[in-house]
Every structure is written in C-alpha cells, then in structure tokens.
C-alpha cells in the first residue's frame, strides 16, 4: 500500500464458476480523488466495486484501508461489526437505483438523518437541522423535508441518496453508475452536484460507470477494465485522448459526440 493511499487492492481474483470476474486486479485510491472504473457490461467493474467495499470476498488478493487513525486494516478480515460500522460512518455507497438504499416509507429528513442517528445522534433538533442543510446542499427545497421519497422525481431521489450518504462526511464513497437511468438534463445537474460536493468535501470516490463522458467530467484518474483485468490505467485525459490499448481505443471511438 502506498504510504498516502486510502484504499489499496492487490492481486484481486474472483471467479463465478468458469468466469473470471476479477483476474488479478490492482487498484489504489488516494484521499480526495475521484477514481473512475470504466468498461462494458461484464467487464468486472461492479464486481471490483463490491470487492473493494467488502461486499464480496475475493478468492485471492487483499484490500487494505487506512482509517482516520492511520491504522491499516484488511477489509476482508475485519470483524463484521467493524465493517458495518465503517459503512455507516467513514464510507458511503451511492447505488444506481436510489430505492435500493432509501427507505421509501420514511420522510426525506428521516432518510438523511438515519446515518446520524445510527452514529448515536440523539438531539432531534440538530438531526433535523442537519437534514435540512443537506437537502439544500443537494438542491432539494427545505420544505420537502417531511415528504416521502415516493413523491420525488428520479433525479431528486438520486440527490436524496447522495445527501443521505454524505451527511456523515465520509472519507470514501463507492458510486455505481450514479447517473444511470436519468434524463440527460437531470444527469448534467447531478454530475455537476457530485463534482462540486466531492471537490468541496475532499471525499474520495470510486466511480463505476460505462459512460466515458461521466468519467472525464468527474475523475482525474481512470481504470479501464475488460474481462476481469485492468487493460489500461492512468490520467483520465491521457487515457481517453491517447488510448494505448486496443480495447480503450475501441471504447473511446464508440462514443457518440453530440
């Protein structure tokens, strides 16, 4: 693990039957940076995200995380309570489908406040104030704080999920296709929001996306995956403007320009 890395993966392997979803993958994430993982469906990018976040245990290899106290922990050897605590506080996850993480029967404010309450916050007024602050942060009007998520549009739901995730000021957020399934105009707004929040909060993000434009906009570094392997990695603009690997060249040349 590099001395200043936040998260480091070495030699990750994971097979599903005869399919090698991860075939010797290395990756590092540094504090405050956005790392994009791109590739087509089935390239292993989402599996990599799961392996990095501890949701899936690799057959071989290790993932190390440097906690706020500087101590390095093996993500896959941590006791379950410690890993869950990490996911509630220092880490966050943004799913493509916000319904996967939001509680649809709980108000927007309750959704945002849940992580605070899980961390032991017991002052209603403070929790509510924080929830309203974070709704504003993601451009949801304060008077929607008591509304149920089912009255929200798709873009609003995604922004609510982001508020719910960032409220505990995590150091590392895993995002899986955060703008997938949204209209282009809604997508642009969300991308801008993520870009601004990430820069201002200094949060590190592992961003899985099949959309190269999203990667270019948000990430300074990029990992290109194909068939469970990293085929190319480096500066986002260099990899996309001067792709070396045949697959990356294909990926870049396949993008439609408006």
């Amino acid at each position: 693990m590099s001395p200043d890395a936040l998260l480091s993966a070495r030699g990750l392997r994971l097979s599903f039957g005869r399919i090698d979803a991860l075939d010797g993958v290395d990756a590092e994430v540094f504090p405050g940076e956005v790392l994009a993982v791109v590739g087509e469906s089935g390239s292993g990018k989402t599996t990599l995200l799961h392996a990095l976040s501890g949701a899936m245990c690799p057959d071989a290899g290790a993932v190390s995380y440097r906690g706020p106290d500087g101590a390095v922990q093996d993500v896959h050897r941590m006791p379950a309570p410690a890993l869950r605590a990490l996911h509630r506080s220092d880490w966050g996850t943004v799913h493509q489908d916000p319904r996967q993480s939001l509680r649809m029967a709980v108000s927007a404010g309750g959704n945002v406040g849940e992580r605070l309450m899980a961390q032991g916050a017991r002052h209603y007024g403070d929790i509510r104030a924080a929830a309203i602050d974070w709704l504003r942060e993601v451009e949801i009007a304060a008077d929607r704080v008591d509304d149920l998520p089912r009255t929200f549009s798709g873009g609003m739901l995604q922004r609510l999920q982001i508020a719910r995730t960032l409220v505990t000021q995590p150091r590392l957020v895993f995002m899986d296709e955060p703008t997938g399934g949204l209209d282009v105009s809604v997508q642009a707004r969300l991308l801008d929001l993520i870009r601004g929040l990430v820069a201002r909060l200094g949060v590190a993000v592992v961003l899985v996306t099949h959309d190269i434009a999203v990667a270019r906009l948000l990430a300074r570094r990029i990992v290109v995956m194909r068939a469970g392997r990293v085929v190319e990695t480096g500066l986002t603009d260099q990899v996309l403007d001067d792709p070396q690997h045949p697959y990356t060249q294909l990926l870049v040349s396949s993008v439609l320009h408006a």
Partner: protein
Amino acid sequence: MSAGDLVLRTEGLGKSFTLHLQGGVRIPVLDGVALALRAGECVVLSGPSGAGKSTLLRTIYGNYRAESGSILLRHRGAWLDLATAGPRTVLEVRRDTLGYVSQFLRVVPRVSALCIVAEALTARGVGTEEARAGARAMLLQLHVPERLHALPPATFSGGEQQRVNLARGFLGRHPILLLDEPTASLDAANRAVVVGLVRAAKARGVAVLGIVHDADTRDAIADRLFPVTPLQDAA
C-alpha cells in the same frame, strides 16, 4: 527563480500513435525532439500544419503519453521527468507548475464562467472569495462582460469561450505556460490583450511555449521560434 534559468528541457522526445482499430498502423509524429525553455522567455513552435506542434505541446503537458525520451521540468525547485512520472505527480505539476490553455474550452455543464476561471486558484488552496475576485478581474481584462460571468459558457460564442479558457490559464500563474492557438478565434482588440498578458507573464519570469499562427501576435510575443518538422519530410 531568476530570469534566464532553464525550466523545461526535452531530450530525445519521441511520440507515435498506433491505431489498433486500423490494423495496428503506426504513425510516428515526434522523434528526438530536444527543446529548451528558459524562465521569462516565449518560444513559439513553427512548422507546417500536421508537423506535430500540437502533439508536442500535448505530450509535454502529459495529455499524450511520451513514448521515448524525457521531459525534464523544474517543479518545486527540483528537476522532474514528466515522461516517467506517475499520474498523481503529473496532476500536482499541472496544478502548481505547468499551465495549459487548449484551443477549445471543455465546457462543464451548469458551471459558471466565473467558477471555471476561479478554479485555477481554488485548486491551489486560495480562498473562494479571493479566487472569485481574481477571476472576475481577469475575465473583465479579457473583455468578458460581467453579465456573462454567472452563466455556464456552453452557450457562449467561440471567442468568448476561448477568453474564458485564457482567463483560467493566466489566472493560475504557473511558472510554465503552454498555449495552443490562444488567439485563433479572437478579434484584434482581444489579441492585443493576450499579447499584454503574455508580456506581463514573461516579465514575471514565466516561461511560455506556444503555437501561434497569427503572425502579428507571434512577432509580438515570441523571443525565438522552435521548428517542428514533419517526420515524413525528415525521413
């Protein structure tokens, strides 16, 4: 750094492109480029269209990957080879030492012109207010009217976008500045502003390396020319 000190030097710099989608054809563009740039001077790349001037600039910036040779650069008082530096080092060099004004502004949806320009300073830890004040002054100097500052440049004209790009490039105050056709879409008045900015930068000891097709602008800023010749001709 006193004026005249060497700040950038390429040695045996080579670059070719391999097009895997077209049967792996290899197109050599640069070979053995040896370029030296000193603080306070402006060097303009010369050569016919397609000679590889833009490729050279982009390779020095790290936008293209150097294939052979080295790109030595003074960064925080020490020499560093950008050709072999890791991505995070390159990002640090871009933030603090090496500025780049591209031919076209890459527009970020919904981000205002002022924010795009101010980012050159906030990225280096300058406070938001101070950065915005600097950005505002620089935009006004480049004749971008105040009413446009709060708007995202997506709807701006080519010349306006280019001036936003220039404002960001010059506001960063990098000791080395790369300019790729900075005046291509500007009128005479704005070209004059750019000439003024380059001269002021040189006076501060900034080393400028550029591609400038407009002869008047080139003559006004260039201390010397660096010829880039097409490899096919050289071969």
